[in-house]
């Protein structure tokens, strides 16, 4: 009996040893995505692009870390479209799954709480799509966070681009804004747009708000109609914009609408249909006017998932590109080493353009594009800089 027991113990020890040995060969990376909740299309794009990036690197034999090649293992967490679950997911990935670095969440109202956890646990977090400046800034000191990076431009930049576009390309002297006051992203960019638009000589005639999950905007839109703007800015998420446009049209509003990068999901076209034709929005990249580097990604993504990658997918892919390059440059699988090499990474050629982190900033310098919705398709309109 005792012999059998010791044999059993021995075999258990051996298997544990084997699994520990094989675990050394893999790198664990975490993803936090909005897979359920009010923007599942965003989370799905993020997850798809992450899996594609990891599949590619593993198909090539793994990632070169120092002298050996390591396979990458992905741990995907759903934040259910909730701020508290975003923080909990970050906590779980860092302490329980012991990932080396995290990509996501995407929307600013989820990325900000998750970034606090990553910062205090000293783990690199790259958010692909969160454009609110607060994501990478420490709330107390207003200095850049040490461990939080992003793969996209920030709202002060985007707001400036849109203000200039409304005034110069659309010749709109009076603008109205309708935005979700309970959401970090929407509120941030609405305010930046207002400041920039007024600085450039435009006039904001209505600055109206609502709260997340509202469906009836008739009172606000009636107010906007009464103010007679030349253009209406809707910096809101893809599931809300179609409702706002439809209700505006029913109230007899014929003013053109413009939007920001939160419009960029193919779901917007499904929900809004022909009602959105002829409107413009700013975003990170144009699938129909992409650089050669991006072409391969777009074909691979289409082959794998049967849809064109939206901006979230492209930015997630770039976030993984940044991460892979920095791990390679660091030469070892260590959280602190990754942070150091990421902040000093030379210019990275991504799907959404070239990006490089400035010395004392976690926000890459990039340019924006303006897309036009034409015949139910996103089409490239112009490159934009404020």
């Amino acid at each position: 009996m005792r012999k059998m027991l010791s044999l059993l113990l021995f075999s258990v020890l051996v298997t544990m040893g084997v699994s520990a040995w094989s675990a050394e060969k893999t790198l664990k990376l975490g993803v936090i995505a909005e897979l359920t909740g009010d923007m599942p299309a965003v989370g799905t794009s993020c997850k798809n692009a992450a899996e594609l990036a990891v599949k590619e690197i593993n198909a090539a034999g793994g990632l070169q870390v120092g002298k050996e090649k390591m396979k990458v293992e992905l741990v995907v967490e759903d934040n259910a479209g909730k701020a508290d679950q975003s923080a909990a997911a970050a906590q779980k990935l860092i302490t329980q799954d012991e990932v080396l670095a995290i990509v996501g969440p995407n929307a600013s109202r989820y990325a900000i709480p998750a970034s606090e956890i990553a910062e205090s646990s000293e783990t690199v977090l790259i958010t692909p799509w969160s454009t609110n400046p607060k994501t990478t800034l420490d709330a107390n000191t207003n200095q850049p966070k040490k461990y939080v990076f992003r793969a996209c431009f920030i709202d002060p930049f985007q707001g400036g681009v849109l203000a200039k576009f409304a005034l110069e390309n659309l010749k709109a002297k009076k603008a109205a804004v309708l935005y979700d006051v309970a959401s970090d992203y929407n509120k941030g960019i609405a305010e930046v747009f207002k400041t920039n638009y007024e600085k450039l000589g435009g006039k904001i005639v209505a600055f109206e708000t609502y709260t997340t999950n509202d469906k009836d905007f008739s009172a606000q839109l009636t107010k906007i109609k009464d103010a007679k703007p030349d253009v209406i800015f809707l910096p809101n998420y893809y599931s809300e914009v179609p409702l706002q446009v439809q209700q505006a049209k029913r109230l007899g509003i014929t003013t053109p609408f413009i939007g920001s990068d939160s419009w960029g999901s193919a779901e917007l076209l499904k929900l809004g249909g022909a009602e959105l034709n002829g409107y413009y929005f700013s975003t990170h990249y144009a699938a129909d006017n992409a650089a050669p580097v991006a072409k391969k990604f777009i074909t691979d993504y289409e082959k794998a998932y049967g849809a064109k990658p939206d901006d979230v997918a492209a930015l997630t892919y770039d976030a993984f590109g940044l991460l892979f390059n920095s791990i390679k440059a660091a030469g070892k699988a260590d959280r602190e080493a990754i942070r150091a090499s990421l902040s000093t990474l030379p210019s990275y050629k991504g799907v959404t353009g070239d990006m490089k982190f400035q010395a004392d900033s976690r926000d890459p310098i990039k340019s924006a594009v303006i897309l036009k919705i034409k015949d139910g398709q996103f089409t490239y309109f112009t490159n934009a800089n404020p």
Partner: protein
Amino acid sequence: MVYWLQQMLNALQLGSIYALIALGYTMVYGILTMINFAHGDVFMVGAFFCFLAATYLGLPFVPTLLLTMIGAALVGVLLERLAYKPLRNAPRVSAIITALGLGLFLENFTLALAPYPKHIPPLLENVTWDMGGVSLSSLQVLIIFLSLGLMFLLDYVVHRTPVGMAMRAISWDKTFVPLMGIPVDLIISVTFAIGAGLAGAAGVMYALAYPVIDPYMGIMVGWKAFISAVVGGIGNIRGAMIGAFILGGVEIMVTAFFPSTYRDFVAFTLLLLLIVVRPYGILGKPRTQKV
């Protein structure tokens, strides 16, 4: 002037939808003195039935509306038979917890089947008339008149038919009414069916007016309808309608007067004050507790 007329129209549309849902809360409370917190989610299920009928069966408006109302009524009866009936003599708190649980079940069941928000195709050709600056859409006219029609029909059923008389009798006294030969279980099921059917109709109209639907849409609307029912005097059908139009009106007018951020804050403060002045609601009567 034009501006105010437009805002009044907006308020009427919103109030009509709240009213149809508030009726379900008030009817169930009237008969069982129980608050059916799953009712807002029955409304959501109604909107999804409308989506299924319109998208997969390709039905036009009238069959969609009828099918949705029947479907929602069945859901209402099922909830009552499977979840509430076994608890009819249990403590009131157990029934309320069950209702909350059922609401969560309906939300997450729908979420599991349809995680993405769904778009409802336009079932009716929408025409917008411009009358001296006031825009009136055919959809608004339909919503307001259909809701009013259904409310008057319900009022007639409750006050002028034998079924209605039985409902009122049960609400008056549950112990002795069965002795008069009234099938209590059947009447309670009918009440749930009517309440849920109206919520289904509200779901269709909501889906037409705000054609992006998701599994969580019933929560906030359900709360607002519940508040309407309380303001009007819970248990009282006409009160629920009045309460709903008041809430719709207050919400729209607050947004029209103040920055829209203050909407819920000001609207609910006003409603709280109203409850302080009339604790039983506008048309509610104090109930004497029988010992």
